[in-house]
Each structure stands twice: as C-alpha cells, then as structure tokens.
C-alpha cells in the first residue's frame, strides 16, 4: 500500500537502507579497513606527500577499473585492456622525439580508441562475437605488435614527462589528481545520459533491451569506445610512470581491473553494480600492494600473496551469493 513518507527519520532510514544494500558497499567497507591498516603501517599516510605518491600508483588502476567496469556492466569483457596499454606505451615511445610530443600522444590516443574501442566494440557489438575470446584474440594481436616493435624496452620519452607526472598543477593539485578528475567528469557526464541506462539494460537482459527499441549493437560498441578513452588515459599514465616503451608495462592491468570490478560488487554477467565499486575495488588492490610492501615480505612471497589475496577477495565477494535463495522463481 502506498504510504506517504512525511517523517524525516523514515527518509534517513530509507537512504541508509539503500546504501547498505548497494552492491559496492562491502568493497567500501573493506577499503576503509585497508586504509586504517595502511595508515597504521605507514605513519604519514595522510600527509600530502604520501597521498600524492599513492595517487601516482593508484590513478591508472582506478581508471582501468572504471573502463573494465563499464564494459562488464554492458555484458562484455575486455581482456585486451592491459595489452592496449602496452601497445600505446611501445608505439608512442618508438616514434616520439622532443618535437612531436603532442602529435604522437594524440595519434596514440586515437589509436587506442580505434583498436581497443572500435575494433573490440565492432567485433563484439556488431559482429556479436564472444567478448571473452575476441578480446583474448585482440590482446594477442596487440601484444604481438608491441613485442615486435620493441622486443626490449626502449624508445624515447622526454624527461619532462617523468617530472610532470610527479608534479602539480597550480602549485598544489597533483597532476595525477587532475587526470582522475578528468575521468570523473567523463563519468559524471555519461551517467546522466540514456546511453548509460542502456548499457545496464543490455547487460541485464539483451533480448528485452532489443525488444524495447534499444540499438544493442551500437550501445555495446559505444561502451567499448568510452572505455577506450579511459584506457588511453591509463596509457598516458603508464608512459609517464615508466618513461620508456616497454611491452610488459601494461600487462598487469588486465587481471587487476577485472579483479577490482569483481571485488567492487559488479557482476560479471552484466547489468548489476555501479562504477563506485570499481573505484573501491581498485583502491583495495592498491592499498593491498602498499600493505604487502610495507610489511616487508620477500619478493617471492609477494607474487604468491597477491594471487592469494585476489582469490580470497573474490571468495569473500561471492559469499553474499551463497546466502541467496537456492531456488529462485
């Protein structure tokens, strides 16, 4: 029965209920927990310097997770994310000289959007190929090209790139925060469009979306293209972090972005979850790296630990599903 909610405490209750039931809430809690732990292990955690330093490593993680999150919500998947980044890194470093920086960067961005966005998006959206296998194939292609162009780390990146990344704008805003803000602005804009809702629709019930008059293949293509903008940003960050062209440089971002998305409560089947979860998930992974680093475990253990942690986080994320009704109808 319809009840008029005039009572303000009822409204607060309603809001809190909504927040707690949100799929990204568990990851939010875990993130807060990790911040606390990290702050304990690293005393000046909340200082400007440390925050700036953390932002430098977290920013590409966050951006790649938003990209992957958008794609996964649309019911697709991008296993070529990391190799796209590698490709960007290699090709830009290969062709860059002191004079053509802006041009090469621009071409690089266009290339990422064309390859990762349009190629994947077209194959998966318009040709209806399986996302898993398609992006596995494109990742092999991107990786292969990158490996062929620069089998060994090389190319040229101007010195100021290195400095800008670790520098500030207007004297106090870290450059990386600036990049993040760009990412958030894009997110803010698209989330107010019908396209955003359609992305959820095709991830949740593709047939129903088509029957509702939604152009499923175009929406899917656009999801990949928008994500590729974020991937291009990641490429720029990575180029600035490594200051060289290296085909290995992007590889970790694939698994990490998928893990971040899953930890953040976004369902791999699509249609469920929100991008805040992707952000929290990325931060969780970043904070975990910090914590492992600061607890000074040997490097052999570190790889093992990272893998175990991903497995454990995923298991934890799966627990709510265990309590779901076994028989749903």
């Amino acid at each position: 029965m319809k009840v008029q909610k005039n009572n303000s405490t009822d409204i607060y209750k309603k809001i809190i209920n909504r927040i707690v039931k949100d799929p990204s809430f568990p990851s939010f809690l875990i993130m807060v927990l990790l911040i606390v732990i990290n702050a304990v292990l690293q005393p000046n955690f909340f200082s400007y310097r440390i925050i700036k330093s953390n932002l430098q490593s977290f920013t590409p993680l966050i951006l790649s997770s938003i990209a992957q999150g958008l794609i996964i919500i649309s019911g697709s998947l991008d296993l070529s994310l990391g190799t796209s980044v590698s490709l960007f890194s290699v090709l830009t470093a290969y062709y860059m000289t002191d004079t053509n920086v802006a041009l090469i960067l621009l071409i690089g961005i266009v290339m990422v959007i064309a390859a990762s966005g349009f190629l994947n998006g077209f194959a998966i959206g318009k040709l209806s190929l399986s996302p898993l296998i398609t992006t596995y194939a494109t990742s092999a292609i991107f990786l292969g090209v990158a490996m062929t162009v620069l089998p060994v780390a090389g190319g040229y990146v101007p010195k100021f790139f290195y400095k800008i990344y670790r520098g500030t704008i207007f004297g106090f805003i870290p450059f990386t925060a600036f990049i993040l803000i760009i990412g958030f602005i894009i997110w803010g804009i698209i989330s107010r469009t019908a396209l955003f809702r359609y992305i959820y629709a095709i991830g949740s019930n593709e047939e129903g979306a088509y029957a509702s008059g939604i152009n499923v293949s175009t929406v899917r293509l656009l999801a990949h293209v928008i994500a590729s903008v974020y991937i291009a940003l990641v490429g720029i960050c990575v180029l600035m972090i490594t200051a060289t062209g290296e085909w290995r440089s992007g590889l970790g971002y694939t698994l990490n972005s998928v893990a971040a998305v899953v930890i953040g409560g976004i369902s791999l089947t699509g249609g469920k979850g929100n991008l805040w979860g992707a952000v929290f998930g990325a931060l969780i992974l970043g904070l975990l790296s910090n914590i492992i680093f600061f607890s000074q475990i040997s490097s052999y253990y570190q790889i093992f630990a990272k893998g175990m942690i991903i497995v454990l986080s995923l298991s934890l994320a799966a627990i709510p599903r265990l309590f779901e009704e076994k028989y749903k109808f």
Partner: protein
Amino acid sequence: MTDTAVQSKFRDIVRRVFYDKVLLAFLLVILLFVAGEIIVPGFSHFSHVMTVLQASFFLGLISLGQTIVVISGKEGLDLSVGSTLTVGVLLGAVILLGKDSNLPLAILAVISAGFILGLVNGFGVSYLGLSPLIMTLAWGIVIDGVLLFISKGSYPGKASPILEMIGHGSMTFMIGTYLVKIPWVIVLWVVIILGIRFVLRRTSIGYVLYGVGANSRAAELLGIKTKNVRVIAYGMSGMLSALSGMFMLGFVANPNIALGERYVLPSVVAVIIGGIDFGGGSGSYLGAVAGSIFLTTLASILTTLNIGEGGKQVVTGMVLMILLIIYTRKKKRE
C-alpha cells in the same frame, strides 16, 4: 544422375561437411599442411608430419582437459593449465632424478598433484560460484608464485630414460621395404582419443557430464550432484595438464619454468577450432585434437619462416579472430 542431381548432391555433401565442426576442423588442418608444403617443400612429407603431430600431443592433452571443463558447462574454462603443466614438469623431474625405477611413483605423484590442484579450481567455481575465468586465472598465478618460490628459477632432477623414449622416441617397423617411424606419443594419443570417445559416448559418466553441461539445473533435479561433477571436471583438467608436463619432460631437453604459459591461449583456441560450444553440454574431443594439430602446425610454419614470438602472437590472434567470425556467422544462421 542428371547434372542438377549431381550438383545438389555435391551441395549436400559440402553442407554436411560444413555443419560437422569436427570434419571442418580437420579440413582446415589439411589445408594448412598443403600451405605448409607450398611454403616449405618437404613440410608435408611423412616423417615431418609425424614430427609435427608429435609436438601437437602435448597441447592435445591439455586441450582434452580444457574440453572436459568446457563441456561441463557454465562457461567453463581453465586458465591455470600452464601452471599445472609446470607442476608436472618440476614434480616429474624431482621425483625421477633420472631413474626409471622412480617412474611409477612419479606418474602417481604428478597425476595426484595435478588432480588436487584442479579440484581447488573446481571448488571455487562450483561451490563458491566464482567465474571460471577469474578463479582459474588467479589460482594459476598462485601456483606460479609458489613454484617460483620453491624452485627459485631452476630445479634439480631430470627425466628418466623410459620417459625420454616415450617423450621423443618412436615405434619403428617395416612395411615392405619402408622403415616407418611412429612416435610413441602419437600411439599414446590415439589410445587416449579412443578411450575418451568411449567414455564420453558409451558410458553413463559421459552422459552425465554432457547433461550437467547442457542444463545443470535439470541434471540436479534429476538426482545428479552437479557441483561434484564440475569439481571433478576441473580436477581432470589439472591432472591432464600435469601429465602433459611430465611427458614434456621426456620430450624437451631443458624445459623451463615459463613453458606452461605458452600453452594456455592455444588450448582455448584449440577447443574453439574444434567447434566446441562454451555454453557447455556438447562437443567432441576430436575437434580439439584437430585444433591442437592446427595450432602446432601453424606455429611450426611460422618458425620456419623465422617469425619471432611477437609475430606468432599476432598471427595466432588473427587466426582466432577469423575463425571466430566464421563460426559465429554459422551459428547465427542456426
């Protein structure tokens, strides 16, 4: 027969071949060998074909595990096969220490270790409901990490003579005046193929596996503990790749720790070439056999053309894309 009757009969045959994914896959293999012969004369002579088939065995065994996992349904996939392969290599070497007397123990140990590692994947996928992609990928990384830690990059031990003989030796006999050499692993492979075909098509185990893959809910309501079936499927995959690793020990003089990684993508591709549906519940291992041979032959041709690792990746990726487009086009028409 009249002209049109012949024409339509021909069209019928072509349609039958195209609809039978296994036949199509083998057709692709033959085409590849023809291309190989053109590019590199002598490529398709009997002894070289045997060599290529021999090299395909290891991928073929891993693809068998992959096939079982894919048939078991729910987007089944095992990306940890490279890591379990390495386990097979290391464990085999460490136990054998070059002595034939240790062989039974080595086989037992490798099979058990592979199976148990696979069970972990199965548990995560089946009981925790994790996506196979993520679970097997992550677990593979964990295994790699542990192996790296234990071996610190190198390992003691080596293959035993019998294993080496099986691995790269051949069965020789005379037909008339010709000396025919058939590598032992090919014999082994044929036995395995026949055995698997029997199990999958003529035993209740096979039917249950296909049923669980086709509709796990229906299978569950018909009394099958589907979760356990899938756990065992992953166990089998782990076991088979570990076994493949052990055989590889006999094939390659110095298998290194990064070897496994190279087999993961191809094992998935082989299954796709074999026309096995990732939705589960259908498909034939013979298809994956053709797929394994196809990929190994392709790599062989590329190596002969002096194309580096990067180039191989690109070509494999493009081949995969093309096949995907062809197969999806076909599926769409259904």
